[in-house]
């Protein structure tokens, strides 16, 4: 994107007035999407973004400027603006010679999205709609969305890092509405991987659409969720978002450093049930949060955060790691060249255990089985969370019985970690997600095996 000579000039300008660190991050991103709704393929949409962000760090202060113009003149002007923002005023600092970081992308792409014609992408939407409607005549509305993106990034900094990555993502989602005696119920399913169009060689959108339709149909016959404190069993792949939101954020070094985390100062302590091992892994091939490097040019890693219940480490970006004199954990990410990087998760999951999932349910006298959690909200300072249950059932006498609908799962992340008393051997990754933090969205994955926790609150609408 930017040649090495220009990168060196820009870094020299950025650090000319004295800087502890300077960085150029360049990005070229293309994306397409197509939507089918109400029986029609509506608009197709394409987007193109290219630009660079320049960061200069002096002491505790970061100056940042970005530009959509990658010409040398514009990059040098942005470098000077960023240096002024950091109030750099001192002798020039030395720039390390750039040395290419060799980090392979864990995901292998065989068919780049731009090689597939738009008609083929649109045909997938039709296939999904037909499959969803074929499930049952109660399915009254179907919408389906196809989206792909290709993001090429380049990072160079005064530590001598020069790194590139080519990140391809392909996503498909289906939403359905079923209509019956209890009114209208909705169902949604999505799949996304850091691969190209070959995704659809192994994953049939018709299966995805059928599952979305069945989720809505099942809720037609569901009764309103009860309310109160209960034992909850979470199904494989269905509840990773809870650990991402209510535990993962509290393990981000920037929040920890500001006292905005319940896990601050607790390294080495037992913070969870001994059954819990929590991992963040940016190297999982094909998973939504995977890549070769983070957005600071550091190779992605697999980082164990909680091991057998003991808090082992937080997640780090370059800035926070530099302050502590330790290596980054490869968790410095940003939404785009127009955003500053910060500590972000990649693929966050709870490792599988030894229990047979059938035994976990059979051992539960009464409670709720959550097959799938939807969106939610969390207070990172306290770990309090609320998630919608998009597919859930009652457990009565050790058996999964009736479906329930319209309930929230409410609790506290750190408290849930200590109340997990069974972990299944059926680990599965969940749906692709977008994690929002301070106004920036990045792609993340999550996963869990079947697990059971006591004392969660279900907020339902049953009288």
């Amino acid at each position, binding site marked *: 994107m930017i040649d090495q000579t220009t990168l060196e000039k820009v870094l020299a300008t950025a650090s000319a007035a004295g800087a502890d660190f300077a960085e150029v991050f360049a990005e070229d991103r293309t994306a397409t999407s197509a939507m089918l709704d109400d029986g029609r393929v509506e608009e197709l949409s394409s*987007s193109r973004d290219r630009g660079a962000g320049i960061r200069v760090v002096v002491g505790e202060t970061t100056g940042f400027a970005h530009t959509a113009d990658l010409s040398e003149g514009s990059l040098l002007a942005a470098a000077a603006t960023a240096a002024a*923002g950091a109030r750099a005023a001192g002798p020039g600092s030395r720039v390390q010679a750039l040395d290419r970081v060799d980090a392979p992308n864990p995901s292998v792409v065989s068919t780049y999205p731009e090689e597939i014609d738009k008609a083929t992408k649109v045909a997938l939407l039709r296939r999904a709609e037909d499959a969803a409607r074929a499930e049952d005549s109660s399915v009254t509305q179907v919408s389906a969305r196809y989206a792909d993106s290709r993001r090429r990034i380049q990072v160079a900094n005064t530590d001598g890092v020069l790194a590139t990555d080519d990140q391809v993502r392909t996503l498909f989602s289906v939403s359905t509405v079923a209509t019956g005696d209890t009114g209208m119920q909705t169902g949604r399913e999505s799949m996304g991987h850091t691969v190209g169009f070959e995704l659809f060689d192994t994953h049939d959108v018709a299966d995805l659409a059928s599952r979305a339709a069945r989720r809505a149909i099942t809720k037609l016959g569901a009764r309103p969720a009860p309310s109160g404190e209960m034992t909850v069993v979470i199904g494989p792949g269905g509840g990773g978002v809870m650990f991402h939101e209510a535990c993962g954020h509290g393990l981000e070094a920037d929040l920890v450093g500001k006292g905005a985390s319940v896990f601050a100062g607790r390294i080495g302590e037992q913070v969870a049930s001994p059954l819990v091992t929590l991992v963040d892994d940016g190297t999982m091939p094909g998973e939504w949060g995977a890549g070769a490097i983070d957005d600071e040019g550091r190779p992605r890693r697999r980082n164990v955060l909680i091991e057998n219940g003991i808090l082992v480490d937080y997640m780090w970006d370059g800035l926070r790691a530099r302050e502590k004199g330790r290596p980054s954990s490869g968790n410095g990410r940003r939404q785009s060249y127009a955003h500053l990087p910060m500590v972000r998760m990649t693929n966050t999951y709870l490792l599988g255990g030894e229990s047979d999932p059938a035994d976990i349910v059979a051992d539960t006298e009464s409670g709720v089985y959550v097959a799938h959690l939807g969106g939610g909200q969390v207070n990172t300072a306290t770990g309090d969370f*609320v998630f919608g249950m998009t597919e859930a059932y009652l457990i009565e006498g050790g058996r999964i019985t009736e479906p329930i609908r319209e309930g929230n799962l409410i609790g506290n992340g750190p408290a849930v970690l200590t109340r997990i008393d069974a972990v299944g051997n059926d680990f599965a990754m969940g749906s692709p997600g977008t994690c929002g933090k301070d106004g920036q969205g990045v792609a993340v994955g999550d996963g869990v095996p079947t697990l059971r926790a006591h004392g969660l609150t279900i907020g339902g609408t049953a009288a």
Partner: protein
Amino acid sequence: MGDGLPRPTEDLSELVAMAERLLDGAAGEEIEVVLSRGASTSVEVHDGEVESFTSAGSAAAGVRVLSEGRLGFASCGTLDPEVLRETVAEARDNCRFSEADEHNAIGRPDGVAPVKQVSWFPEVLELGARDKVERAIELERQVIGTDPRVGSARSTSYDDGWGESVVVSTTGIRAESRGTTCSVGTQPLANADGETQIGWGYDVARRPDELDDSRVVRESVERATKLLGAGKPPSARMAILLEPRLAVTLLGVVTGMLSAESVQKGRSPFADRVGETIAAPVLGLVDDPTRSESLGAEEFDGEGLACRANPLISAGVLQGFLYDSTSASRSGVSSTASAVRSTRSIPGPGAQLLVMEPGDRSRDELLAGIGLGLAVESFAGLHSGVNPVSGDFSVGANGLLIRDGQLAEPVQEITIASSIQRLLLDISAVGGDFEWLPSGSGGASMVIDGVAVSGT
């Protein structure tokens, strides 16, 4: 503004001309071009030091092409002429693969004159970097000095910027808008007995001297400290008291169900209910972007039509839905100029500036009338917990209990369950404490009776 940032032009004629050049060469098709540009700075401070100082210029273009009933869209993050031409070509190519719909439409001039808004205050551009930094540091100092339980803030910031945009089309649309904005915000952390709560507060204005920093300090510290020591109440039916901000938030969820697109696609519980009572008679609600007192006032909607007042609910009776050009064509009505979009997105109908009709009782009088209730501080999961199709409602909440007309102990990890339809009918009072909120909306406090609140 820092050095090296783009400066606004004297007027928007250059941007209009750039957009109009893209319309040349339209053959048997309609084209709509939206171009925008601007610049912003952002200062974040922590512990009395600047944590980051960001300066940035931005530009964007969005192009819709409508050909034989087929719509295509493309966008880019630059105004580079070469990329703009490619973007038009891409939107045209996208047309070929979508399906024809006789109702697909882009905006057409309808003769309604825009209500003039004054939203350009160049003094925002003159404020020096040092002044911005000092303002943020002073705000943080005051936040930390207000209450002994507040020892730090997660971040405190000052932001400002300007933006300008134009919408032009082969159908005769030509709309220009520009504005300046600035804001301050903070997130104090309060600690007591090993428990931490996080608060927040912000204010937005067209120019720096209109920002109310002392209100931000007061409200953010109050939000951080009021929930310390919160427990879970026993489950019960009770009244909930919503301050203006939350009343508008709840009505915003309702308004999403009044988008003509939701109605036409069979996804609104209020389809076919125009002229019927859907709420208590105390409720009046209008979507009115022409209100100059509001920070959200606009002259044009996302398709370049003049904004206008659209009554949604009057004395509890549903007045109508919100339409953009396509949904209006489908229903055989005129657009209500309710196209909502960013430059980079396809427009759709939605609310732009909600204004509640105030009642006549003060907030204290509303409180005094509640025997057992909950003064809600925040809802959690309002988007995941409301089914926009059925109206079923189950969200998390925290706040202060109300006993015999007095605010009592804090509570958290509770849920409120009902349906949107039920909540609207159970509104028992709207306060006279009308205010324009930093979000731009105009709201008043609201009491809803007999809501199922579950805790333990």
